[in-house]
Every structure is written in structure tokens, then in C-alpha cells.
């Protein structure tokens, strides 16, 4: 390469950085600064008051390990029975089941919406309604629907003869977390369906025509042609939802009794910082949550890539 092109490249790189600078600065301010502060506070014994007056002490890793840390591995009842252990288990259970269900339902919805039928545009708009309702509103709405005494859900199931007594969907620990998963699936399936539908509409038609001419069974076409082609888009949709699900807070906080049976990691962080005034300890939990989400993302991208190379 001649020096002229490399100069041009350098020039281009420089202007790219200049144009990127404001974005990077804003990102550093709105994302980097709070994150840095949280990590910093996780090494202190700060309370809400102490932040304002700057009267806190550095305590090293005390908020992370040992008797007063989030990873109290010597807890009498065992780590997985501590509140933080429960929060991790609840969050992963919730994330796994809701994302898997949403993805499967999303694919089915997308395939239906991709077909040509009368009133398709109306249906497409209609399925978006649950996604358009703010989570806090839909959570409260479902809390009423699932109320044990006057909820419409019990009334319907009872009149259909499926249950013989009212079930306390959001209060009974056997049902509470699953009720939350159900509402999350209701709310987020349209989002998944839409992302997958977008991918379906980009598919080239020629291989379908070829498959049709060759007389290949539609199910085989779906798994051999459609799935590999929409795989990257599907993976992106799943990771979006997974990251969202891992930091779940509002839906659980509004719908359930908020005992340790259903508390999520974000709920735990809120409880420690706001209710119990342990900003340091809560920040440590928050940092761990951040690391867990980061690790999940990396792991997921690795796994997804391995699958894609097949």
C-alpha cells in the first residue's frame, strides 16, 4: 500500500473517533460513572446518609466474602438457602423458563403472521398490545386477574370445572413464581414474534421454490432451511430477552408478596440499599449481578457461535 492510502485511512480513523467522541463521552457519563460508583461503593460500608456526607470507610472484600458478604459460603443453612442464594435461584429459574417459552411461542406466532391471510396487518398490530402496556400496569392488572377471592382467572377455571376451589396464584409459593413467568410470557412473546417475523420476511424465496419443486416435506424445510437462516436473528432476540429477564424486578415486586420465595437479584439489591440502608452491601450484590449478566452474555455468544458453525 502506498503512503497516500494509509494517510487517508489514518485521516478516516481520526474523523471516526472525532464523530464517536460525543457518544463515548455520554456513554461514559450515563453508564460508566454509575457503574464505577457502584463498584466503588461495594468496597465500603456506606449507608444512604453516609453518601451525602461522605462519611464511609473502605472495608475491602467484606461485602463479598465471609460472614457479612453476599457469598456467605459458611452460612448455617447453606449458601443456596441464604436470601442471596434464593434470589439467584429464583432469577435463573424465571429467566430460563420465560425465555424458552417466549422463544418457542414467538416462532409459532411469527410463522402464523408470516402466512398470507386476510386481516393480517390487523392481527400484527393486535399482538403488539401486551408489549405496549407498561410492565407496571400489566403486572397490577394481572395481580387483579389472579386475585384469589375476586380474580376472573379463578372464576373462569372454576366455571369450566378445572379447579374446585380458588387458588391463590400470586401468594401460594407453589404458584407464585410460575404466575410471574406466565405474565412475562404474555407480555414479551409479541416482542419475540416481531423480531423473528422480521427475519422471516428477509428470507430468499428461491430455496423454498426449489424445495417445493423437489417435493420436500414442509417440516423438513422448516428445520433445514428456515431455522438455519433465521438462526442469527433468533439468537439476537434471545439474548435481548435473556439480559432483560436476568434483571427482572418490577413484575415480581408488584405481583407477589415479595417474600424470599420469589425475590429476584434486582429485588434483593433494592431491598438491601433502600429498605435496609446497606448501600455498600447492596452495591456488592449489584456488582455481582452485573458480573453474572456479563458472564451469561459471553458464554451465550460463545455457545451460539459454536452452533452457527455447524
Amino acid at each position: 500500500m502506498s503512503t497516500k492510502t494509509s494517510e487517508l485511512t489514518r485521516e478516516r480513523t481520526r474523523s471516526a473517533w472525532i464523530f464517536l467522541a460525543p457518544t463515548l463521552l455520554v456513554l461514559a457519563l450515563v453508564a460508566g460513572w454509575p457503574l464505577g460508583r457502584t463498584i466503588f461503593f461495594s468496597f465500603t460500608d456506606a449507608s444512604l446518609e453516609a453518601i451525602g456526607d461522605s462519611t464511609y470507610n473502605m472495608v475491602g472484600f467484606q461485602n463479598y466474602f465471609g460472614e457479612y458478604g453476599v457469598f456467605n459460603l459458611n452460612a448455617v443453612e447453606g449458601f443456596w438457602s441464604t436470601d442471596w442464594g434464593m434470589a439467584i435461584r429464583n432469577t435463573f429459574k424465571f429467566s430460563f423458563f420465560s425465555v424458552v417459552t417466549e422463544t418457542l411461542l414467538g416462532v409459532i406466532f411469527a410463522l402464523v403472521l408470516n402466512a398470507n391471510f386476510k386481516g393480517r396487518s390487523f392481527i400484527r398490530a393486535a399482538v403488539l398490545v401486551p408489549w405496549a402496556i407498561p410492565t407496571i400496569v400489566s403486572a397490577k392488572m394481572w395481580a387483579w386477574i389472579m386475585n384469589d377471592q375476586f380474580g376472573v382467572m379463578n372464576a373462569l377455571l372454576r366455571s369450566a370445572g378445572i379447579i374446585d376451589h380458588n387458588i391463590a396464584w400470586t401468594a401460594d409459593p407453589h404458584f407464585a413464581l410460575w404466575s410471574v413467568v406466565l405474565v412475562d410470557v404474555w407480555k414479551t412473546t409479541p416482542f419475540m414474534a416481531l423480531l423473528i417475523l422480521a427475519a422471516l420476511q428477509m428470507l430468499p424465496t428461491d430455496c423454498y421454490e426449489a424445495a417445493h419443486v423437489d417435493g420436500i416435506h414442509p417440516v423438513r424445510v422448516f428445520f433445514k432451511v428456515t431455522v438455519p437462516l433465521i438462526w442469527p436473528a433468533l439468537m439476537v432476540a434471545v439474548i435481548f430477552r435473556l439480559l432483560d429477564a436476568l434483571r427482572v424486578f418490577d413484575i415480581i415486586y408488584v405481583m407477589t408478596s415479595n417474600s424470599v420465595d420469589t425475590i429476584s437479584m434486582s429485588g434483593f439489591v433494592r431491598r438491601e440499599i433502600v429498605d435496609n440502608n446497606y448501600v455498600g452491601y447492596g452495591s456488592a450484590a449489584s456488582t455481582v449481578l452485573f458480573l453474572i449478566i456479563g458472564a451469561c452474555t459471553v458464554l451465550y455468544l460463545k455457545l451460539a457461535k459454536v452452533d452457527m458453525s455447524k
Partner: protein
Amino acid sequence: MTVMTKTAAAVLISFGALGAVGAQAAGVTVTISCGSVGQDFEFCKKAGDEWSAKTGNTVKHLSIPQSSSDILGLFRQMFAAKATELDVLSVDVVWPGLLKEHLLDLTSYAKGAEKEHFPAIVANNTVGGKLLAMPWFTDAGVLYYRKDLLAKYNEKAPTTWAELTATATKVMDGERKAGMADMQGFVFQAKAYEGLTCDGVEWVSSFGGGNIVDSTGKITINNPQAAKALDTAASWIGTIAPTGVLNYGEEEARGVFQKGNAVFMRNWPYAWSLSQGADSPVKGKVGVVALPKGDGGKTAATLGGWQLAVSKYSAHPKESADLVMYLTSAAVQKDRAIRGSYNPTIAALYKDKEVLSANPFFGDLYETFVGAVPRPATVTGAKYNEVSAAFWNATHEVLSKKATGAESVKKLEGKLNGIRRGPKWN
């Protein structure tokens, strides 16, 4: 009206600049957060408007959550930011110790008016010699029952938990057979929040199981009577109480009872006037007695109640304190007692004929209200909320049948030791 007030205020302020205003600088806007349970808001709005009309100031209302745990979280965040948006705030009886850094000393504004109120509550609100809040209304848990249903089944109001269980079962089964499929025996507050701590303290105390942490700071919850109390409460869930109580606060329980679908309800006195309202299906059918006793114990009611305080960060401390003194005065407390069945904190009002005729049980239960059991807030100080959360979670675990009472109180003891972090609470 508002325009006129504003104009008047503008005129007065300009006079103020010339030094022509007296003690009451008119035209100031004071923001207050009252409660949101039951009729709290309407009463607070009315009394606030009266004060506005009297002083020419404006009262702005800040809406707050229903659950006291959520309200505390909100206030803590506002205080941490030294927010000036809030001037007057309602303070739960267990909070003065928690919020002491942020509340104004009202001693010089009260001018001795606090001496009319119950001394125990004034003492509760006085931290380090400073009067941080004025008593607004007091509270104690009481048992509501359906007079008509008990009469129909020839039963009388229970005095022990065993009697309550038996009566509730009998009436509930009978009513369900008669076609009232939704009839429940007993509703109370069992959601995992501060209200469950109140209910739990009553159960444990009525069985002679102490009060979680004793007055010297010793953790006493791990004892057989406490375990028995929690096991007894757990036996109600799914039998006389709907499983849904595990997610009920005060208003959810009242919803079921006031609709006519429960025989008994544990709640605060505020539910009385609402149950007697013109639109209430149970109007005239409700009785109120002291909560039942456990085996080998005596009746116990948890002390509740709210105070009014002024934020240290308020821009108008003088006007705010004046509003607090007005709202906690005998006249306003009397009005609230008659129309809202809020228990006054002024002893003299319990002998007032109008108050007693509106709330017949105030006189009978006077001892319950005065001798109510406080939650262990003073001894645990800044860590009270965490202690309470550990207790309500342990109780919730027993009620939802995930642990027995004995297992749960043992685990709770370990947890409370961890929260205390050493030999002393503070």
C-alpha cells in the same frame, strides 16, 4: 379561590419584603405526605384545606405507597438526596429512631402541647431529648367479627385462638353449605411486609413467646411458645383463612371482610368507620373485641400509629411545624375519631361522648390501646427494619408451610445474630 389566594399571597409577599408580615408568612406552599390506606387521604386533604383557609398558605399533597415498608424506602431516598420537595411527613411509630437524622426538633414549636398526648408515644417520638414528631393517631390490632353470623350459629366472640378456630370453622362450613361458597373464616395481613410483623408479634406475644428481641437486646425468638404460635397461625392457612392471605395487606383483608365474605378479621381501628359506611354491605353487623389469647398467654395487640414530623431540609420549617400542630390538635383528632375511627392520642378524647358514640369499642378497649405491645424498634435502632424483615420472612415461611415453627425460629435466631453483627445493636 386559588387565584384569589395567589393574588393575596403575592400582595402579602411584597409586604413581607417591606417587613410588614407577622409571625405567619402567608402564601407559602407546604408539601405533606399523609397516608393512603382507607380514608387517610380524604381526611388529610380536608384538614389541610382548613389550615390553608386559616393561614393563607397552600397545602400540596404528595401521594405515597400503601405499604409502610415502601413508604420508608421512598422517604429514605428523598432524605439521602436532602430533597426539599417534602415538608411534612407521616412517620410510623417504629421510625423515629430510624429517621432521627432528618427530622426537625419540634420542641420549640409545640410549646408544651405534647403534654396532652399519651406519654408513652411522646417518649417514643423523643430521641436524644429532641421531640422529632407529634402523635397523630395511635393504633392497636383488634378483632372484627360478624355479630349477625355468630348469633345465627349461637356462638359468642372468641377469647382464645382455639375458640376462634372452632367458631370460624363452624360458621364458615355452615354458610358454605347454605350456598355462600366464598365465605371465609378469618382474614388478616400475611403478605411479607411490616404488617405481617405486627400480626406475628401479636401471635407470639399472646402465646407468651416474648417479643423477638427483649428490652436488653437479647434475641429471644427461639423458644417453644413462639414456635407454637407460628404453627397455630399456619394451621389457619387453607382451612379457615384463604391461601391468598399470604399476599394480603390491610386493604385486601378489609376488601374480603367488608364484602361480607369473612367471619373474622384482624385489622386496625380505621376499618370500623368504613365498615359502617352507607355503602358497606356489613353495616350494623360488625362487632369489635380484643384479639384472642394463646395457650398460657394473654391478649396482645401490636402498637401501631402514625406521627407527623417536619423534614430538616424543608424550606419552610415554621409553617410546616404550624401545620403539624394544627393536624395533631384535639379538634382535628376528634373529627378524625368520629368520622374515621382513628384513635386519638389525647387521653381526654376517650371520655368524649361524641367520640364514644361513633366508636363504641373505644371505651371498652381503652386498656388494649394504652397497653399495646411495641415492636422491638427502640432496642434495635437503625437495624429495626432489617430485624422486622427477617421476622416477617420467617413467619411467611411458616405460614406457607415451607418450614415448621421450630425450624423457622431457630433459623431466625441465627439470622438476627448476623444482623446484629456483634454483642450490641447500635
